[in-house]
């Protein structure tokens, strides 16, 4: 959550800003929003526009990372042909 807003913003403004951010983050992470949540975002389209550029660019929730399998733990017996 963006906690580094310029001083001077009212609590209400801050709140709306942060709520927009939470909802945008949810969307970014692929989650669903309720219709009323979608409406909230439409109501504060300006804030949405500002917040969009401030969302983290890296993927937030992509599940577990790929992990290699170690196959060379032991030496296999070699059959001479």
């Amino acid at each position, binding site marked *: *959550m963006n*906690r*580094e*807003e310029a*001083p001077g*913003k*009212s*609590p*209400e*403004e*801050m*709140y*709306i800003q*942060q*709520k927009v951010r*939470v*909802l945008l*983050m*949810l969307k970014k*992470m*692929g*989650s*669903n929003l*309720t*219709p*009323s*949540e979608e*409406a*909230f975002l439409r*109501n*504060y*389209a*300006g*804030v949405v526009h500002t917040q969009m550029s401030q969302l*983290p660019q890296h*993927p*937030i*929730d*992509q*599940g*577990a*990372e*790929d*992990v*290699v*399998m*170690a*196959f*060379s*733990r*032991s*030496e*296999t017996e*070699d059959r001479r*042909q």
Partner: protein
Amino acid sequence: MMSMQMSETESSVKVAEWQQTYYASDSGIQSGATTVRDDEESEYSKKHTVSSATVVESSSEVDAQYTLTRAQRVRAAMFPETLVEGEAVLSTTQSEPGQQTNVQRLAEPSQLLKTAIVHLINYQDDADLATRAVPELTKLLADDDQVVVNKAAMIVNQLTRKEASRRVLMQSPQMVAAIVRAMQSTSDMETARATASVLHSLSHQREGLLAIFKSGGIPALVRMLSSPMESVLFYAITTLHNLLLHQEGAKMAVRLADGLQRMVPLLKKSNPKFLAITTDCLQLLSYGNQESKLIILANGGPESLVYIMRNYNYEKLLWTTSRVLKVLSVCPSNKPAIVDAGGMQALGQHLTGSSQRLIQNSLWTLRNLSDAATKQEGLDGLLQILVSQLGSDDVNMLTCATGILSNLTCNNARNKALVTQCGGVEALIHAVLRAGEKEDVAEPAVCALRHLTSRHPDAELAQNAVRLHYGIPAIVKLLGQPHYWPIVKATIGLIRNLALCPANQAPLREAGAIPRLVNLLLKAHQDTQRHASSAQQTYQDGVRMEEIVEGCTGALHILARDPINRGEIASMQTIPLFVQLLYSYVENVKRVAAGVLCELALDKQSAEMIDAEGASAPLMELLHSTNEGIATYAAAVLFRISEDKSSDYRKRVSVELTHSLFKHDPAAWELAHTSVPLEAGYMADELDGAYPPYGYADIPMDGLPLDADLHEAYMPDMGYDPRQGYPEPL
């Protein structure tokens, strides 16, 4: 200087016997007959002249002989053909016909010996003569005169051509030791070649190997690996090869003699057969011996071996080299060096030929190397071949192909896209179906599918391809009993990725994924709780049950995006467990638990159940998480469960949210506290009237008056009117 020790009587008998076979006269070796000048001498001399072509011709230059050294005179007597031009021919200095010189008398035993050996060569069954020849030859091999040594060596080399005489040689430790000494101390190339050839001949029998080994032959042969003569090199490496193959203790001796340090540079030679033997030696020395592998690495072995794989066609050489690479590929230090030298690409060249043994060795080596090759470029061809090999019925090939693909698609978007585009998904599904209970095939195949279905531009293509190739039922079945946990874990991850594709949600549900995941989650969670008191973590087949808990919850989180699925998930009494998981010490578990609750909370009934389970408290804590995903899910759940709450509750939530939001901005927090009359000015009750019922009513939920102005873009300078009270959270 060694010589056969015989008793006088024995010697006399032997000489008598010898005389009876070929010679009628007494050489004087025992009787001293030739030391006396008499008619017998003449007779002897004549006879000697007749029977041998090597008697020195008489010369009238009496004085010349006295100026030659003793060695020169011996040499002239024995090997007249080696006399240097300008040297006087040694004369018999016979002032009278028939008279023998002292030198001739001395040279006679050797002359006889030489003649005897020539006869021996023509009579291969006569081992006795060889036995007699051996002591003398042994002595001659240690002579100060290099020419003498050279000739003796060449005679011994001749003797090794015949089995009977060869056997006699190898039974004489002194002879073998003399050969070894001569070989390593000579500066004459021909002597080196002849002696190396002798040892090579002897190395074809066990007895000979033992004799070489016991005589210190190994350090000497290792030294010969530095010879500039190709023939010496060949004899030395082949003899060492025979020793390594058949002589106990040889490996240790070669290692101690720094054999590896001498052999690795030989990999730069260009004779394929020589290289085949050399690489086989390296394999014999390094199999199971970590120190040897490190020595090979330190001497540039990986680069040279990869070069061979890339540039030669001789099958046997490619096979032996692939075996060395296979041995080195289990060494953590050699592995990255082989990969960096282009080993993956080089081995990948040999997967489609006619040599099955080469293909299989290359595959095993590639598999071993693959976890160090995830960032390698230029593997497109290899990947395509591996995808085609997924159609094989050979279980070894399948094991390797799936394993290599699994690792090469790990965190590599380019490789993932390529494998997806060339039909890898379908091929992997078929491999899973054919694998049955073969975990070495099934596990990497499922892992590969898991990699292909996330974190690259074509992930969606792969997710759809699994469904289109009828993979979903087979994959869900892998969650069933009996549980091999690594496969179960990989499958759970794959299902989670498949659920990212909306078109897969219904097929997954229909295949029974949800109840299987829920049951696995319950089982794993119970297991972790049972061991919670002890510090020990539970592992089953090398998998921690916490990983299963996380995986299942994560998969259910994504499945819950579908409304029917989330109803099914909630109906299985999972909410209490998910709420409990919010308390987990594992951050990932907290994240997926908050995530699934966030989806479930979209349904009002579920939201109420979540609240009833006391989720608010842990969720409030999670608002402060440094993990933005966790904080986001927690906030969303709180928004959704506070819809029907009392104003006090909503106020508390908003305060907590603000508190967490302003955590790093004390000035703003201060401002919020002073300018917002949280108690008196909070007109929640008033706003209740305007607060619509929870659900999907299509009106703004912010609680502010429905003023047309407010539908416009938010204006930062609008200002806050304290009379309006704090905006209602959704």
